[in-house]
């Protein structure tokens, strides 16, 4: 049998057509998720893991376009983008306090329907610690309405210089002066209360040339630091911890409309707490007098070797142990944040939670929402959460952080599980930024010595009462 050339071509084309019809067609669409994130290690790690490992379940080519925005400008930039109507972002890593403002503005999408429709996602959220889930996800705070998934949960912990604290000369001198041991190991530092923190602050007031850990100090050296800056929330986050530990409170948004500001925010216990916070500032580096000792400055001072102890968010720890960015890498221990020793001898470590959730914007179309949810599920999967923790992040998922491996990833992970139990959050109402800015201004006046704790809290309470009454949140 002989076949003509035309017959051969026809047969080949028919064969190809038959094969293509027999095989189900898979069209891989290009999907880009645009996300605004603060620029710091936890989001950089996320992007790296995504680029290296993420494969969408849908088979689509999903790209994650991330805008890394410096922390100090992050709220302003995201707020400007959302309110301008440019609809640039499908997702964001948002601070939890912003939920109310951006939900009421119609920007953040409610997620309950997506969670209810996805048993796998629901199970993941059920397996999380309640503190970060409520802080990052719920609006009104602690309600059943979910708007966010944890991206990077965070808490305040103690960064400590072991080469200084553990030095035999310093140990002996401290013992001689205070009649007690200078905490040195992570376990000893875990037992530190604010009183001991203050003693260490007083003890390490060294001038350039003074002896420090067996040799002459090459610059002035200080014992302690915590955030006391005017910008953003760079004193409120620390003051709130003192307030709660002393048994006082901030305005309680879960008690709307009956919860009052006046009488609560400026209660005698709250004044005592603020006085306690202020009393330790005199041991800190002189920049505290300028009102600009924020979390970035304390982090810089610690990494530059000017501090024995620093209270800082875990999110900064990765750069503290990296020799490329830290002069004290290899000489650091991490421990729980100090707390207030109560009459029964127990230490109250109640603190303001840090960290951020993922949120999805209301204008994101269904196809992108599906990809966004798949991405969040991937992020919250056990394997990726372990990898994130191993690279310096944290996980809010109980099965992940309770895994014995977890504490081996990074030296600060040992503080995580216990620390989570002490976390509370600040307000989530739309007026939060006005509340925060006025409070920061007043705290700044106290930090820089312009007014006392009572006058400060009276001014804050009066302002909050008026603002919240005008907004209908206090009756």
């Amino acid at each position, binding site marked *: 049998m002989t076949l003509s050339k035309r017959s051969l071509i026809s047969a080949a084309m028919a064969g190809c057509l038959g094969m293509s019809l027999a095989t189900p067609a898979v069209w891989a669409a290009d999907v880009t998720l645009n996300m605004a994130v603060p620029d710091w290690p936890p989001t950089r790690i996320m992007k790296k893991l995504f680029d290296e490992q993420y494969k969408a379940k849908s088979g689509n080519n999903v790209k994650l376009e991330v805008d890394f925005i410096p922390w100090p400008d992050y709220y302003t930039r995201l707020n400007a983008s959302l309110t301008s109507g440019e609809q640039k972002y499908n997702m964001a890593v948002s601070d939890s306090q912003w939920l109310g403002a951006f939900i009421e*503005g119609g920007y953040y999408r409610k997620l309950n329907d997506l969670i209810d429709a996805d048993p796998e996602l629901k199970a993941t959220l059920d397996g999380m610690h309640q503190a970060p889930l409520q802080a990052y996800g719920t609006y009104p705070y602690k309600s059943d309405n979910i708007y966010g998934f944890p991206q990077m949960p965070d808490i305040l912990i103690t960064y400590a210089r072991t080469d200084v604290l553990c030095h035999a000369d310093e140990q002996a001198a401290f013992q001689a002066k205070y009649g007690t041991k200078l905490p040195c190991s992570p376990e000893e530092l875990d037992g530190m209360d604010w009183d001991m923190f203050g003693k260490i602050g007083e003890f390490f007031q060294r001038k350039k040339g003074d002896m420090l850990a067996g040799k002459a100090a090459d610059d002035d050296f200080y014992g302690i630091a915590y955030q006391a800056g*005017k910008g953003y929330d760079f004193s409120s986050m620390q003051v709130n911890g003192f307030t709660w530990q002393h048994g006082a409170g901030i305005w309680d948004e879960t008690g709307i409309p009956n919860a009052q500001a006046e009488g609560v925010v400026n209660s005698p216990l709250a004044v005592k707490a603020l006085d306690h916070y202020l009393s330790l500032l005199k041991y800190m580096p002189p920049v505290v007098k*300028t009102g*600009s000792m924020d979390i970035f400055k304390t982090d810089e001072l610690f990494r530059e070797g000017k501090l024995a102890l620093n209270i800082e968010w875990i999110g900064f720890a990765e750069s503290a142990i990296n020799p490329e960015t830290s002069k004290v890498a290899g000489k650091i221990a991490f421990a729980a944040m100090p707390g207030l020793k109560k009459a029964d001898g127990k230490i109250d470590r109640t603190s303001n939670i840090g960290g951020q959730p993922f949120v999805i914007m209301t204008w994101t179309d269904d196809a992108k929402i599906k990809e966004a949810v798949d991405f969040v599920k991937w992020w919250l999967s056990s394997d990726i959460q372990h990898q994130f923790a191993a690279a310096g992040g944290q996980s809010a998922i109980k099965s992940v952080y309770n895994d014995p491996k977890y504490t081996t990833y990074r030296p600060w992970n040992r503080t995580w599980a216990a620390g989570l139990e002490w976390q509370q959050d600040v307000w989530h109402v739309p007026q939060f*930024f006005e509340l925060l800015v006025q409070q920061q201004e007043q705290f700044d006046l106290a930090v*820089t010595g312009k007014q006392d704790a009572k006058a400060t809290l009276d001014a804050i309470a009066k302002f909050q009462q008026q603002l919240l009454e005008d907004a209908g949140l206090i009756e």
Partner: protein
Amino acid sequence: MKTTDTPSSSGNALFTPSWSNWLGALIVGVVATVISALVLPAITTLWIAGAASALVAVTAVVNAWGRYIGGLLIAPAIAVLVVMNIFPLLWSLGLSFYNYRADRQTLRFIGFRHYERLINDPVVWDRLTTTATLVVLTVLVQMIFGFLLALLFAKQFPLRRYLLILVLTPMMLSYVAVGAFFRYYYDPTFGLVSQVANLFTDEPYVLISSTGGAIAAIVIADAWMWAPFVMLLVLAGLVSVPKYLYEAAAVDRVPAWRRFQSITFPYVKGLLMLALLFRTIEAFKLFDIVFILTDGGQSTETIALYVYRQAIQFNKTSYSASLSYVLLFTVIVLTNLYLYLANRRAKEG
């Protein structure tokens, strides 16, 4: 297609479809926009309004073609001015009479209530007082140092050209760079000022630990940046002084101060006044350096920083618009007062 019709010449011409019938296009555009605003979504209305504007512009150009050349030549500049300046200005003026927030899309007319509120707000007066203090101090320092620098650079000396470039560099830098630089410069632990002071006092020097210190820090940073601008203007005046005047004065043995008073100053006075005007207006808007150096702490929050907080952080768009208009009004009044006084003195002179 007709190109030279004048639609206003008769009543019928108004409704004649023609590329030169700009009045007809305007009426159609306005009607279409109003109808779409009533029945269509806002975004569609926006596009219809844009298309109507483009149609009116095209018909106006066709109508003017060959007849109003001058008008056509300046039309692009006028259009840019209207779109980029005048329209937003009027829009924000309108907004100041409403209760509008950028994060909510509700609009409620409240008349002059924002203006009433801000006039009675002690915080606004406090911020205006701070601004006025900074304006007076920073402009004064800039004028003095700018003038002295100009006197220095008016003379010839070795490496003058290179030093001049160095001195002019600060005003070419961004505010953020200058702010960040001075923030480190003043830092009590890492900063140069403190390190030098430490050599003599054995204590770190904390400049921004009081209101006076913080104001000094801002004034120094701003003057460092803008004194060269004053210098540049004054220098232009100094080099224009005819040399023979100085020669004649030398022959007459006129003392140096009298030479300055009678010859130098009259030549640079006009430019000095111009520098004063420019710098005063700019100083009223002082924001960047204050934002970076103190974030308004130590009682240094200027009115511009206060407006920023209201507009960008609190999303109080209408209130911040009314604040901006008060600021604009203040600057206009001061500028006109200044020009009036300057003109009167010039006439007297």
